[in-house]
């Protein structure tokens, strides 16, 4: 049977009933980083706590990647099956702006300021059939 695994350990909670992105908050200056880091980029402090980031935010900016990137890009796609994908920064309240792929690739359906939810979906398969889970931002319903 197919197993699922996250694209990287420590990027988000997985498996979890309500998965969330994981950031680190600096206990000295309060700044949040994603992905979670061992020291603070703002003040160099090393007293950090890992915490779940909010699941809804707003689109700060975006683009659409129109051609298939070279390695290290690693999906199940080929040049023939490649589909352009949206990319954006989503501002998470009280935290940070996180960069991620968008589930939407139609420029007409993307606008700065719209509400976005983080979702966790299968991204590609390993040679043994395991599903690799990535994180994406989806326009809120």
């Amino acid at each position, binding site marked *: 049977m197919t197993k699922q695994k996250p694209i990287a350990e420590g990027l988000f909670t997985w498996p979890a009933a309500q998965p969330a992105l994981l950031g680190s908050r600096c206990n000295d200056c309060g700044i949040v980083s994603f*992905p979670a880091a061992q020291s603070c980029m703002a003040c160099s402090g090393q007293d950090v706590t890992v915490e779940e980031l909010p699941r809804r935010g707003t689109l700060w900016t975006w683009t659409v*990647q129109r051609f298939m*990137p070279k*390695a290290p890009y690693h*999906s199940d796609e080929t040049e023939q099956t490649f589909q352009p994908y949206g990319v954006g920064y989503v501002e998470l309240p009280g935290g*940070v702006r996180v*960069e991620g*792929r968008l589930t939407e690739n139609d420029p007409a359906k993307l606008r700065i300021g719209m509400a976005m939810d983080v979702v966790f979906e299968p991204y590609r398969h390993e040679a043994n059939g395991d599903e690799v889970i990535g994180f994406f931002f989806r326009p809120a319903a």
Partner: protein
Amino acid sequence: MDVAIVGIGIHPFGRTPSRSGLQQGAYAARLALKDAGVAWSDMQFAFGGSASAGSADALVNELGLTGIPFINVANGCATGGSSLISAYNAIKSGEYDIGMVAGFDKHDRGAFNADPEALGIGRWYGELGLMMTTQFFAMKIQKYMHDYGISRETLAKVSEKAFINASMNPNAWRREPIGVEEIANSQMVSDPLTKFMFCSPSEGGVALVLCRADQARRYTDTPVYLKAATLKSRRYGSFEVFAPSQALQQVDGPTVDASRAAFEMAGVGPGDIDVMQLQDTEAGAEVMHMAENGFCEHGEQEFLIQSGATRIGGRMPVNTDGGCIANGEPIGASGLRQVYENVLQLRGHAGERQVPGNPRLAYTHVYGAPGISAVTLLQN
């Protein structure tokens, strides 16, 4: 001790299948030596950079084994600027009288292929398809257009100007003028930027001979003085390339910091500059860098570019040699190309594309991953 540029050399940018990157660097170096009327053996030091064409210090194999201290510099798109600053400081300190800065490169076709792990980012970032400088520039200008009312036509006009200027530059790569419509309607690469709005990896070489200002007249009748050379990296809160996340509170980027420091060092202001070469990795970058370097307010570019102010003959000529858009970007050479162009302009030797009115002060700016910026100010 002030520093002067007394020799310049360039190998044409673009594609030269018959010469390696190193040979293109050596070609430029020989021209620079000839221009200054000196020999390679007169060089007391050298700084050089190449990202994809081998070690820059291998130039000694082409130019001669003289025992010269040759230091390799690697700083992304700011490699040339970083080499120049190193040479500037080497002479300014009084340690050396004369030396060389060289940069060359030869890249494969297609977008640059960055390795996330080399930059301290997890492999997942590249696997998901986020490790693309093109996306960063597209997202930065997308936000900027939203905030400051820059139109897509203005982006196309930036590229149109680049190709017009390049048509008057025998060393440029893309020398065919392309119309605004064709630029705007060319293949979309990363919204809102189309194919003809981006620079491409290319090939080329540039070398400069620098010396103590008080000895400059020994080598040339037209010395150009380096009034400032600055380099800054990003601070926490600036929006930069290859950032999986960014702060909610934004601060000025390294371009603003490097620019302010350069003006302060030279004791002049943006209004004093007669000609400027600004990093135009794509058309939006030129627009944003005009304001980040202090040459206009945010949003003013819409009028300035539409009215032709940034063309040769306009009141603030930008990227008079065609910039990265028309020359492509051989990483090691790109920043030095800007300096080469400014020296030509300040000598009054820029031919068809000479900025009128005897320019006196010229400005260069490069920006590169993962958030570094270098600025120089040149005076004749």
